[in-house]
């Protein structure tokens, strides 16, 4: 059923990315990344139940260079998905569809997710300094 005036999906090769579209696909990408990240959460909890040795192995990995990189990336992904998820919930309730509002809330999510990531890591590093 071919028709000339049916809507087309954007042609990604020539599509000019906007904040709103980039944030939309980022929500999905961070969601998938966080799904992979749950492996770390499960490992942490299962290791705690298994005993001190298993826990030290898990904690050792999390405290390693690679562990920190992953944890940092997942912290940002978590805050991004959380903040943008709240933005989505407002849309689901019928608010914030105006183009201007969508951009304002978009920038608010970007700033909030970066700020929350920095605050969390700053607090964590201070706590680590205090505990050792």
């Amino acid at each position, binding site marked *: 059923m071919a028709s000339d005036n049916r809507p087309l999906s954007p042609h990604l090769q020539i599509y000019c990315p906007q904040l709103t579209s980039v944030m939309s696909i980022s929500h999905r990408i961070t969601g998938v990344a966080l799904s992979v990240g749950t492996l770390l959460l499960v490992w942490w*909890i299962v290791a*705690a139940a298994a005993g001190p040795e298993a826990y030290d192995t898990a904690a050792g990995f999390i405290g390693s260079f690679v562990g920190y990189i992953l944890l940092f990336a997942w912290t940002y992904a978590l805050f991004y998905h*959380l903040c943008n*998820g709240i933005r989505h919930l407002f849309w689901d309730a019928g608010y914030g569809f105006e183009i201007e509002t969508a951009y304002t809330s978009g920038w608010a999510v970007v700033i909030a997710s970066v700020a929350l990531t920095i605050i969390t890591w700053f607090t964590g590093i201070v706590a680590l300094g205090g505990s050792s």
Partner: protein
Amino acid sequence: MSLRTPLGRVRGLGSAKEGVHHWWMQRTTALALVPLTIWFVSSVLSLVGAGHAAMVDWLASPWSATFMVLLIVATFYHMQLGLQVVIEDYVHNEGAKFASLLVMKGVTFVLGLVAVLSVLKIALGG
């Protein structure tokens, strides 16, 4: 030719009225995960540098265990709903789609279950 029974037709039955179940569950778990995530991040921050004994001590308290189980259930429910949509969007071969959905649902269920049981083991002093 209709496959509906005459009784079903006269009663107006047909749709199970659950077409939006996936949508609602994704939003419900999302809403629950907002406070749970904030609780989780602040809890993990309070455990920075702590060893096994301190972690188990914290998780063994009834409130920690309760929130942790809620976090795990909401997270894995939300996650399998989200991954389902991703698979349905990108895997077009029917066989491959069915297989990957089964594997994904199975793996998320097992991961969620082992995490919940681990929390319970600690909370119930196993």
